[in-house]
């Protein structure tokens, strides 16, 4: 199961599902419509073939009506009677025929006497022969049949003709199923027509070059020049020697329509997909992306970070939320900065002396392990110098604490001016100071001596008071046996040296060596 935890994932999933659905619908509809169209085309072929058969029946009936019209025209039959009984010139027959029936839609007319003599249409010998063969010259009924003659396949309607109850012969009128006829029928039916004789195309509604080509249907389908047709025979009579009329629907034409439809659907699906993608992208851009950004920001804030958020001019819900959140984060950051500042100040105040600005004893204890470790790594020694102003209590007592403080500041300045940059200066309390310097006790002794001399030479003077200031110094080198926590032991040793300096007259430097002290 795919976990769709985020809107982005859901959107991508939904859009993908939509596209998949559209494509599947397209494929499914194409396949189903393909089958449907072909099946319907088969039904249509049969139905249209039946329609053409119906059309043929109507035309045959009309043709019979025309034959009857001639039969029932007494003026015409009177002429026929005279012509047959007297054997007159046939010109009169032709005249009255043309006058009375010349407008009728008939291709050929043959009128035979009972003896088989052609009274009209003597030039149509083939039809005359057929009428005689079928024994229609002395027939008594209206007949219809198909005839394959000089002009091709013809529909023939015959009627016996008489005058005053005296049989005169037979009238035969024809309608040729020629190119014009099959094209008219094609126009009505919408398919193609093939007139086939002995398995060869005699006439068709498609291009003339197909004439003479083979036409052998199989399972109601036939291939002509690589084109497949659905075909159905149009029944025009029982005579197997007659040409066959076939109605056909081009499969390519049908599928072309289908393809056209499919392409339209494809265009719609593609447009739908593109639309879906655009909508999805717009949703991702306008909804999911800001939401994800907001989520990331919340995660960052949750992780303790307060990133800088640049709120935009967006007025939508997410934009509003982001802007409010941005303001909240900004406020938090400002408050955090204030806390840091205060903390830093507190830390500073906790580790420095407010009067001189030197680190205090607490900081000394905090920093010493680090300095000790560094000294060990660099194979250097650490030396402590404790300095204590001589008779400082007397200064306070005599000149007051403000002057005492200024004397302390004066001493601090001397310390600072005579120590190296790398040295650390601490105020341990009162008039007692400590210098932590790298190097051995000899170096420490020189630094202390330098300070002592500088102080001795530089009395405190503020225009009102001129106070000579001296100090005593105890120097002790750190021993590797002291370890990281050996500050107290070092201080004890330095304190002892300082004590010896005080007891030996002050204003001097005493160095503590192991098991001995040297001044």
């Amino acid at each position, binding site marked *: 199961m795919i976990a769709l935890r985020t809107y982005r994932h859901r959107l991508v999933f939904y859009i993908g599902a939509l596209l998949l659905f559209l494509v599947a619908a397209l494929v499914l509809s194409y396949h189903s419509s393909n089958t449907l169209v072909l099946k319907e085309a088969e039904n249509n072929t049969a139905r249209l073939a039946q329609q053409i058969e119906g059309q043929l029946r109507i035309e045959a009936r009309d043709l019979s009506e025309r034959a009857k019209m001639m039969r029932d025209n007494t003026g015409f039959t009177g*002429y026929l*009677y*005279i012509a047959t009984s*007297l054997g*007159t*010139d046939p*010109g009169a027959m032709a005249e*009255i025929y043309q006058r009375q029936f010349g407008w009728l839609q008939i291709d050929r007319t043959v009128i035979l006497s009972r003896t088989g003599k052609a009274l009209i249409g003597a030039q149509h010998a083939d039809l005359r022969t057929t009428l005689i063969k079928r024994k229609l010259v002395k027939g008594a009924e209206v007949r219809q049949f198909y005839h394959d003659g000089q002009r091709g396949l013809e529909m023939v309607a015959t009627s016996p003709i008489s005058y005053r109850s005296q049989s005169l012969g037979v009238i035969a009128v024809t309608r040729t199923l020629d190119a014009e006829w099959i094209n008219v029928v094609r126009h009505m039916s919408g398919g193609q027509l093939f007139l086939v004789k002995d398995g060869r195309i005699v006439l068709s509604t498609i291009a003339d070059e197909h004439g003479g080509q083979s036409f052998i249907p199989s399972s109601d389908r036939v291939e002509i020049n690589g084109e497949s047709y659905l075909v159905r025979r149009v029944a025009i009579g029982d005579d197997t020697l007659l040409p066959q009329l076939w109605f056909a629907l081009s499969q390519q034409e049908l599928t072309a329509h289908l393809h056209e439809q499919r392409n339209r659907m494809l265009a719609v699906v593609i447009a739908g997909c593109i639309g879906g993608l655009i909508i999805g992208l717009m949703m991702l851009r306008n909804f999911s992306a800001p939401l994800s950004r907001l989520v990331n920001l919340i995660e960052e804030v949750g992780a303790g970070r307060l990133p800088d958020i640049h709120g935009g001019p967006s007025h939508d819900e997410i934009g509003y939320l982001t802007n409010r959140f941005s303001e909240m984060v900004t406020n938090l950051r400002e408050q955090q900065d204030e806390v840091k500042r205060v903390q830093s100040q507190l830390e500073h105040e906790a580790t420095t002396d407010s009067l001189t600005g030197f680190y205090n004893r607490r900081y000394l204890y905090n920093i010493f392990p680090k300095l000790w470790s560094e000294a060990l790594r660099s194979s250097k020694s650490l030396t402590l110098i404790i300095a204590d102003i001589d008779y400082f209590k007397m200064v306070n007592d005599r000149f007051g604490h403000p002057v005492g403080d200024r004397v302390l500041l004066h001493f601090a300045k001397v310390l600072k001016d005579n120590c190296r940059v790398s040295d650390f200066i601490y105020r341990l309390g009162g008039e007692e100071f400590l210098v932590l310097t790298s190097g051995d006790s000899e170096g420490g002794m020189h630094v202390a001596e330098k300070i002592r001399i500088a102080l001795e030479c530089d009395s405190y003077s503020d225009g009102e008071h001129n106070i000579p200031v001296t100090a005593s110094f105890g120097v002790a080198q750190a021993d590797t046996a002291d370890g990281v926590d050996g500050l107290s032991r070092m201080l004890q040793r330095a304190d002892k040296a300082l004590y010896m300096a005080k007891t030996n007259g002050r204003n001097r430097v005493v160095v503590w060596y192991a098991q001995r002290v040297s001044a």
Partner: protein
Amino acid sequence: MNNNRLRCLSRLAGVWLVIGWGVAGAAEKPSTPTITGAGEHFTWVLLDQIRPQLERDQRLQLILFGKESMLGHGCNVGIKKAKENRVGNETFGFICCPLAKEEVENEGLTVHPIALEPLLIIVNKSNPLQDIPIEKVRAIFRGEIRNWKEVGGEDRPIVIVLRPHCPQRPGHWKTIVPAVEQFRKDRIEVKAEAEVVQGVSDFAEGIGNIGSTWVFEPSQNIKVVTVGGVAPTAENLRSKRYPFYQEQSIVTHGEISAPLANMIREVQSGEDFRRVAKKYELLPLTPALP
């Protein structure tokens, strides 16, 4: 009186004058009687040709039906139309054959003879014959002669085209063969004079008869032959040398109005009719007016 008022009054007077003249004219104008006639084609030809003169001289409106003999117009229609005569609806008929005495009496009709019309013997234009003796004409129509070579023509069968109209009335084709039964049986029998002409035109072997007022069309292959060397003229009818004819008459029913009586008298004896009769070789049956 200024010019404007004078002009206005003169215009008003003009309008009144026009209105008064129109009303007076309408009151004085006599109503024109309308007379309707119908019947067979031949007399219609005559009447139609003198209709403008009759309408002008007799001050009447003449409506005639009979141009198309194929549309059922004929002697019977003429008698029927004559019997519709009423006051205010003057009608008359025209016929091409004399009525039997019984028919006249029973129907209350009055026959007004106009003229004798020669019956032309017509053959196809391709027929080389120009004349057929009278008895041979009758023999041909009776069927006793069946081939043109028997009368000096080509060796062709003879085709008779006949319209045996008005068989109960005397005269007309009966001057050729007195009864329908005596005509040759194997003939082309038609119902209109136009079909007679058409039939003879169609058959190179054809023969038929038609009144002399028939107007032939140039496309028809017809020619008129003389009978026994006698041409079908009014003069030969008068001298009784030409034997085939029919009688054209106007027929009325009951009392007829003065305009109708005047019109009939004018047709029978007027100068205009004489001129038309001469054109068609008709023999008028009423002396001309002095």
